[in-house]
């Protein structure tokens, strides 16, 4: 066991500290369960379950959107990447933030105006319902499961380090606990409960980040140049630590990989189903716009703080200690809390416990949002409109949604247990690439391109999905490297870790090819409906 693990586990094992972590986390779970039960009592029809009754304000939803978006990958992953690779870690947060402008300018309002519950509502609006809803449901579930895996893996890493649970059985137990809790949140609380949980979590996360940022800046007398200088010195990399290139600048291939990642990040957000369904929780497109504006402000402020956290960790903790604790740097933020408070002091232990509990809360809330997105899409797109061909009663549809939640929860417990040692940030970037390749082209074409047809939508969704997932399968993420999922075998031939640079253009091109190569005529009347509704809100639900 490494010294850093000793530091953390020692902090965790000094039983009172460990008790504190567990107590804080239990308080969060208890509070959110109360909210869930309260929300569950008010959840009566489909609009309540899928869209929280559409009664949230723009600010409330903006907070909830931020909660959904600031996942373990943002908080733990980015702070860790900055702590280890300096400036290159910061590049992630820029892509994650700029991406919101695509959602703001092109997607959020038209989607709110023309859809009801799912992304599939908009994709299938002017198309043949059954094939397009099947495609939309499939890609929703695939994207959400990639994302879920990342969060589950994050939970495992965090718990094993902070609570000193290193046995496989213990890690699997934690993954199962997260899975059961998310099933409870979603089946009972639906969108209303989940939205409130996201809001609580967003406030806690922002407060935690503010506290750490303040303490870091205090240490450096609010002199940012000093902070950066100390980070560069302590990292032993000198001024290179503050310049691009440490992570992605090694070879021509890694540079290309960075471009691929950048494109996937900036185009992925507006195709993430769990983000898109949030826009249905507000009454109007105007409120959806306000949600995005608030989200941009909150998420932007949060990423600026991760800059302080990452460089703070680099300045105050030896790089060996960060790497020894977790190779990918995922524990840099909790380690920073410990060091800011003082290793071996009560204050340090309290800070560590608080930040760890916040990180758990983050994971729990995000998995609930993801599960809701995939079970909604299963029930509304696939069960009600494909299997039952629109004849299902609302009660049957909601029953299907709840059973789907249990099913998806079970699947993600199993996959999460298998994926417990995988790289968190990598999995999330993959989910972004799949969303940008399979979902975004069809969303954009459906809304803005008159000529677009069912064949185009199917080619684009399936083509984007298959090319993104296929390239990942044959990339170094899966095989051929010590950091791969299967390090002992090597069947990779695609050199990049992120497929976006190929699969996103493929998704967009196939939409055009599928449209022109089929004899199908576009439905002009339906496009008139969609276009007028999406821009004016006429007949919005």
């Amino acid at each position: 066991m490494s010294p850093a693990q000793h530091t953390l586990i020692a902090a965790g094992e000094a039983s009172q500290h460990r008790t504190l972590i567990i107590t804080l986390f239990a308080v969060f779970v208890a509070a959110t369960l109360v909210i869930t039960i309260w929300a569950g009592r008010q959840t009566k029809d489909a609009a309540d379950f899928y869209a929280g009754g559409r009664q949230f304000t723009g600010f409330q939803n903006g907070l909830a959107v931020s909660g959904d978006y600031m996942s373990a990958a943002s908080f733990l992953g980015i702070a860790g990447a900055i702590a280890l690779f300096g400036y290159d870690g910061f590049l992630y947060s820029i892509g994650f933030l700029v991406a919101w402008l695509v959602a703001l300018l092109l997607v959020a309002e038209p989607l709110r105006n023309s859809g009801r519950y799912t992304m599939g509502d908009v994709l299938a609006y002017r198309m043949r319902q059954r094939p397009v809803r099947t495609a939309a449901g499939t890609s929703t579930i695939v994207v959400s499961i990639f994302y879920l895996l990342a969060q589950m893996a994050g939970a495992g890493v965090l718990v094993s380090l902070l609570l000193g649970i290193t046995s496989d059985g213990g890690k699997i137990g934690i993954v199962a606990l997260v899975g059961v809790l998310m099933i409870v949140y979603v089946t009972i609380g639906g969108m209303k409960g989940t939205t409130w949980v996201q809001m609580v979590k967003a406030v806690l996360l922002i407060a935690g980040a503010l506290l750490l940022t303040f303490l870091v800046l205090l240490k450096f007398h609010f002199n940012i140049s000093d902070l950066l200088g100390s980070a560069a010195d302590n990292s032993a990399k000198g001024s290179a630590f503050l310049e691009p290139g440490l992570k992605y600048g090694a070879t021509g291939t890694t540079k290309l990989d960075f471009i691929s990642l950048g494109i996937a990040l900036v185009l992925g957000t507006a195709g993430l189903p769990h983000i898109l369904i949030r826009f249905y929780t507000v009454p109007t497109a105007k409120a959806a716009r306000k949600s995005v504006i608030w989200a941009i402000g909150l998420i932007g402020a949060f990423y600026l703080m991760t800059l302080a956290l990452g460089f703070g960790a680099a300045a105050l903790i030896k790089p060996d200690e960060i790497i020894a604790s977790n190779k990918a740097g995922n524990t840099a933020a909790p380690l920073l809390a410990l060091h800011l408070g003082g290793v071996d002091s009560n204050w340090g232990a309290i800070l560590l416990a608080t930040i760890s509990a916040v990180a758990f809360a983050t994971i729990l809330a995000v998995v609930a949002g993801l599960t809701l997105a995939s079970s909604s899409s299963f029930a509304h797109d696939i069960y009600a409109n494909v299997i039952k061909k629109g004849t299902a009663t609302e009660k049957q549809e909601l029953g299907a949604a709840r059973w789907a939640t249990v099913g998806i929860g079970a699947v993600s417990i199993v996959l999460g247990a298998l994926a417990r040692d995988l790289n968190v940030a990598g999995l999330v970037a993959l989910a972004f690439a799949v969303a940008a390749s399979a979902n975004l082209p069809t969303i954009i074409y459906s809304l803005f391109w008159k000529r677009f047809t069912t064949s185009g939508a199917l080619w684009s969704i399936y083509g984007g999905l298959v090319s993104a997932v296929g390239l990942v399968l044959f990339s170094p993420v899966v095989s051929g490297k010590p950091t791969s999922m299967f390090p002992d075998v090597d069947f990779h031939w695609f050199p990049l870790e992120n497929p976006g640079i190929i699969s996103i253009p493929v998704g967009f091109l196939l939409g055009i090819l599928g449209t022109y190569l089929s004899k199908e005529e576009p439905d002009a009347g339906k496009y008139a409906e969609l276009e007028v509704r999406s821009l004016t809100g006429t007949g919005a639900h």
Partner: protein
Amino acid sequence: MATETPPPSKTPTRLPATEAFVAEQESAEFGELRRSYRSFAFPLTVGFIAWYLLYVLLSNYAGDFMGTKLFGNINVALVLGLAQFLTTFLIAWWYSRHAAAKLDPKAEAIKSRMEGGA
């Protein structure tokens, strides 16, 4: 964050017939709404994506330039990164101002006319 319009009722509003939408789509009033939306949103989208890609490419291939120190330990890379944040905030603010002034009144008028006439 109050919403000026009351929350919609749970039963969806009865939609006008498809022909009404086709007529509306071809009307001058709707054409103007579409133009003021698209002529704002589309070029701006191309613009901010190009600016972001420029930043990505500079990070990749212009290391010396990005490493130039401006003051203290603050270099060009950091300033350009923060500039991405700043432009994102500015574009969000600018769009919301444009939408409130130019798009919302037109959209409202068409919506109430269509729903009223349904």
